[in-house]
């Protein structure tokens, strides 16, 4: 578990940003007493926390702690059995999953979930779906409104491709790309909807050391330039501790601690959850 040199990476990457942003903004998301049950398994048990605008919140915890389940609640793939989730003060729990992107919640997936038979560019274009309008008739007949919307989508996709340096693979099928590239495509795709909150589920999974370093920079770049709040689930402690403003720790579906990265590294319950592995 690399708890390696968070200070060093941190000061290199985000010193200025986190001084300004930590605890400064309004909560973008409020998670309140969220409980999720799968049959007998209590995947989430009364979890509450806020994420402030412009922050990067790290969400950590051992395997099976409920991190992905929480993500799936935030993107409305699961409905909590109790509790509430509010985006900018309004509950999201009455909206269908496909409304989330338009409301400002974008995400990447733990194991990449690209549209693998589409090109990188088309993946990013699909990401812009919620930010554009058309219907099957206007698209089939190439009505002026559809052509205009298509031009806007193209422009947005090209900007993202340039911004995230995907130019050299832009017109390749995602299926043929190495894993690291696919993850970057997913990030571009999620950003195409111009989210307020970006959910990243283990973006470092399957990446090598250098790529993880790059990813840390990329996450900060996306937050700073893309004007987005980030919820980061990650097992790579070096990465979490270096980019997060705050960290929430889950274990067996319950929040066992919350605080700054420094506080979490000294927290006895956190250390025992990771080292002991048992039920505290």
């Amino acid at each position: 578990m690399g708890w390696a040199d968070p200070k060093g990476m941190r000061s290199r990457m985000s010193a200025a940003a986190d001084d300004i942003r930590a605890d400064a903004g309004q909560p973008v998301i409020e998670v309140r007493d969220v409980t999720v049950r799968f049959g007998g398994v209590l995947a989430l048990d009364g979890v509450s926390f806020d994420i402030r605008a412009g922050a990067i919140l790290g969400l950590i915890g051992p395997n099976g702690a409920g991190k992905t389940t929480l993500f799936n609640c935030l993107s409305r793939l699961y409905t909590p059995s109790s509790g509430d989730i509010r985006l900018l003060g309004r509950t999201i729990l009455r909206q269908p999953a496909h409304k989330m992107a338009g409301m400002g919640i974008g995400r990447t997936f733990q194991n990449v979930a690209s549209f693998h038979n589409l090109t990188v560019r088309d993946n990013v274009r699909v990401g812009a779906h919620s930010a554009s309008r058309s219907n099957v008739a206007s698209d089939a007949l190439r009505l002026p409104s559809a052509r205009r919307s298509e031009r806007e989508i193209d422009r947005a996709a090209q900007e993202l491709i340039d911004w995230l340096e995907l130019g050299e693979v832009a017109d390749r099928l995602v299926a043929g790309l190495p894993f690291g590239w696919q993850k970057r495509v997913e990030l571009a795709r999620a950003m195409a909807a111009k989210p307020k909150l970006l959910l990243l589920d283990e973006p470092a999974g399957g990446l090598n050391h250098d790529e993880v370093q790059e990813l840390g920079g990329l996450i900060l770049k996306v937050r700073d330039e893309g004007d987005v709040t980030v919820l980061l689930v990650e097992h790579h402690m070096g990465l979490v501790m270096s980019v997060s403003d705050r960290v929430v720790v889950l274990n067996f579906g319950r929040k066992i601690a919350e605080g700054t990265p420094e506080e979490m590294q000294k927290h006895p319950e956190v250390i025992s959850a990771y080292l002991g592995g048992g039920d505290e």
Partner: protein
Amino acid sequence: MSTSEGKMSDLGSSAPWPAGAAARPKVGARTIFFGLLLLVAVTLPFISKNFFIFQTTVVMVYAIAILGLNLLIGVNGQFSLGHGAFYALGAYTAAILMETFGLHYAWTLPIAAALCFVAGFLFGLPALRLEGVYLALATFALAVTTPQLLKLSPFEGFTGGVQGIVITKPGAPFGLPLNSDQWLYFLTLAIGLLLYWLVHNIVHSRTGRAFMAIRDNPIAASSMGVNTSLYKATAFGVSAMITGVAGSLGAIVIQFVAPDSFTFALSVQLLVGLVIGGVGWLPGALIGAVFVVFIPNVAEEISKGLAGACYGVLLILVIYLAPQGADGVIRAAVDRFKRLL
């Protein structure tokens, strides 16, 4: 992030992907090819016998039906073993409107299109809950029910029961110097080109990308804001509409509809045509249709008694030689041609 490009490129070169996997023939070459094809298509009815014109028209009708099926299966990833039902709906709509209500055949096409869109959309809605083999079963049920429904005595007044309906062959309008076969050929060609243009536009649009996103990863699609239920039902509707228009044209061209022309075998034929042409490749519909219309004749030439078996052997042969359909063969040929140059 100055290092990122270099790092990612290293990764790229260490895991090579097939060269030109996403490459398609150049636009220029493609335009020339399709231009020539169109030229041949336009001159063909003036240099061929009427029966060959008729057969080619039937090929185009099947190509349209397969095009519709391709939008559903190849583009949207929903399976249908029952598209013969929508073909039948289009065919009977045209036949009944013309023969019972005396409507001009040109009017029957948009009406059949609308009806088949609604039927497909409505069938697509409950089918949303079904995936893979279950959807295959539900559409299979649709295919086997259709000929039975068409034979039912309460509808006999409209459908003509087992006898079916004979349709009067329309001649060329506006005093055009064309015989009936030539006229129907051009009508089918024009409508086929129109529908091809519409489907092509859809595939290269926001709607089409939503269809393909659902095919590749429905959960990710919905997280990107795609209303998967709406788009899946829409894909079903448009697909049924196109196949239904083919049915109407088929009825007018063949001048006859009867329940036994629209059995499960028709749905399977459309599927065979789709696979032969290449799933997801739109021009493949024409190649698939040529196979579906002419290969049974070839099989019969080989052996009258064993025509079915010959057809089966030919089919297996083609599938082995071109496992990805005509699409794969043409792409490989274009790649090789490029390497030669």
